């Protein structure tokens, strides 16, 4: 009876995949045989290693003393007043390196060390994941190679400089649209060519099983802290709303994770509409995507009728990805998360507004989450948490052209 109950619970749990890595119909590991041994090793060991006490201890110490956790949950008074509700900002922008990405890279580097890997590779879009990876590799004395789309290298120059200063090698991805998708392809190829000594740190909740689950778990610290902080602040651990931007979906996965089973919490994901949903220059995957396979998992992706992935567009390099993690694809299909979107223009306006209202310059990615506030009707005693996933220093060059 008890066993049956557990099985039933697992089956209905939307936050975790089944043993083959499927969230509903999405997920799995669609990889060529050359990647199989490395991916299988991770599949077999990630839960065991990350569950060990010594791992948890080391991780939580580094998250505290190196990354600066817990990050504050800030009651944004002026913004709350404007929308006549209570708005709280989860300040991931105050993490070391300026975004939530380091939560995952610390976890994966500790995992890589326990797997005996000496060489770390990563892909990066905006450069935040690349910087976070380079940072932790520097801390632990590991070789670090970051693949980055040639176009992104151009528009994210400060982050490229940071990675180099941290001792990483940045390799431009020159194929395709020269953005995040292509950087990911290059990283996968590198892993195929270096099967023994290398661990690939995927920066989002995408890729073959177990990456979506592993990255979601490392990022779930965000919602874990929100619960504790909100309880202290308001006496209730559950907010009414959690809002986060979504490219691949790592900060949203982290901010939603411990609320997915709390059905009363409204979860809102904001995709990048680019120049508009019908403009052909967009990255709003759930709105325009169909089921397909990219980077080793089955999910929603933007593609042609022939099954060729289309080139996305967003003003923010971090959301400029034609797919979405399988966890999110399933949450969308099941109707558990409401997916909204914001255009480049709306994101820019939201960024400038937040800067002037609350004294915080957000990353362009993050600004998308703020851009939908005007479209949602809140009640006076709602408690709205927005995941402020990253700070905007890296986007100054873009912001400067609009000053």
């Amino acid at each position, binding site marked *: 009876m008890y066993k049956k109950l557990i099985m039933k619970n697992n089956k209905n749990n939307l936050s975790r995949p089944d043993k083959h890595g499927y969230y509903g119909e999405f997920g*799995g590991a*669609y*990889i060529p*045989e*050359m990647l199989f041994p490395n991916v299988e090793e991770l599949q077999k060991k990630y839960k065991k290693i990350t569950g060990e006490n010594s791992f948890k201890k080391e991780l939580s110490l580094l998250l505290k003393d190196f990354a600066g956790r817990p990050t504050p949950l800030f009651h944004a008074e002026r913004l709350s007043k404007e929308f006549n509700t209570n708005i709280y900002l989860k300040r991931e922008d105050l993490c070391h390196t300026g975004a939530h990405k380091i939560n995952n890279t610390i976890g994966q580097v500790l995992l890589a060390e326990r797997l005996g890997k000496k060489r770390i590779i990563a892909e990066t879009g905006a450069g935040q994941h690349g910087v976070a990876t380079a940072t932790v590799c520097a801390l632990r004395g590991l070789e670090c190679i970051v693949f980055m789309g040639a176009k992104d290298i151009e528009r994210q120059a400060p982050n490229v400089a940071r990675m180099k200063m941290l001792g990483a090698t940045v390799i431009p991805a020159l194929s395709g649209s020269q953005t995040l998708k292509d950087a990911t392809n290059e990283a996968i190829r590198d892993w*195929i060519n270096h099967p023994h000594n290398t661990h690939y740190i995927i920066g989002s909740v995408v890729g073959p099983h177990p990456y979506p689950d592993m990255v979601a778990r490392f990022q779930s610290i965000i919602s874990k802290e929100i619960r504790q902080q909100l309880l202290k602040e308001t006496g209730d651990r559950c907010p009414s709303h959690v809002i986060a931007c979504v490219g691949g979906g790592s900060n949203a996965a982290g901010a939603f994770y411990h609320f997915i089973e709390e059905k009363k919490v409204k979860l809102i994901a904001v995709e990048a509409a680019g120049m508009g949903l019908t403009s052909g220059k967009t990255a709003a995957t759930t709105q325009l995507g169909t089921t*397909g396979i990219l980077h080793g998992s089955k999910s929603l992706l933007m593609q042609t009728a022939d*099954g*060729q*992935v289309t080139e996305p567009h967003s003003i923010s390099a971090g959301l400029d990805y034609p797919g979405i993690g399988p966890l999110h694809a399933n949450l969308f299909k099941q109707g558990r998360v409401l997916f909204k979107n914001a255009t480049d223009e709306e994101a820019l306006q939201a960024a400038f507004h937040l800067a002037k209202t609350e004294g915080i310059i957000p990353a362009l990615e993050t600004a998308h989450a703020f851009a939908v506030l005007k479209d949602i009707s809140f009640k006076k005693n709602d408690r709205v948490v927005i995941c402020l996933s990253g700070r905007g220093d890296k986007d100054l060059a873009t912001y400067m052209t609009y000053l």
Partner: protein
Amino acid sequence: MNQLEKQFKIKKENLLNIYCTAGYPQLDSTAEVMLALEQHGADMVEIGMPYADPIADGPVIQESNMVALDNGMNLPLLFKQLESVKDRMTIPVILMGYLNPVLQYGIEQFCADASHAGVSGIILPDLPMYQFEKHYKQLFKKNGLSFIFLITPETSEHRIRMADKLSTGFLYAVSASATTGNAVDITSQKRYFEKLKKLQLQNPVMIGFGINNQERFHNACRYAAGAIIGSAYIKMLGTQVPVGDGTKAFISCIKGELPLAC
């Protein structure tokens, strides 16, 4: 028994399988390339279905995929081209590509159309074995299509046997843990090849990846039924040499029928 399986009954050694991306270098090159390969002594031909994100492939085949896509190649057109040439082909034709375009085409339709177009084997490196076994095995069988799995030097014996059990036609042994077209150290492969030979697998083994000259072809043939060449042939097609002459010289070189070093 399809044409591919027959070929391995007729010829047991030194089989040469040459790969070319469909729609490369020109949109309508596919038929000409296939006929040239047939005429000049290839034992089978592997046609790549172009895909914009070929993660198992190195730069040469990636580039040929992009050129082919820019030329306008897609599956409906490829099947038309294959059909136009099928009566003139006696050697088996294999399709190689990635799963997503096949899924969007509809995998049942794909199998039916491939079979109708004279194809006898399929290679989809990113289709996992357990998915194949659970969902698709019967479908390929029903359409008379062999399905070929890849193994690498890192693949465990248990898994090699699983791939051997599920494969029909042949087993594709990737000669090194690498993307296609990468140079490979021959001596380090020797133990892997010897190990494969000792396993007494039920399928013939074809060795691929990094085979780009006579020496490597013959070395591979010492341990396996034959070898697969991709990047080196694509490189040749990328030069301005006419397809017929180029293919003739290329195959002579690989087989060692010409004295010159190739």
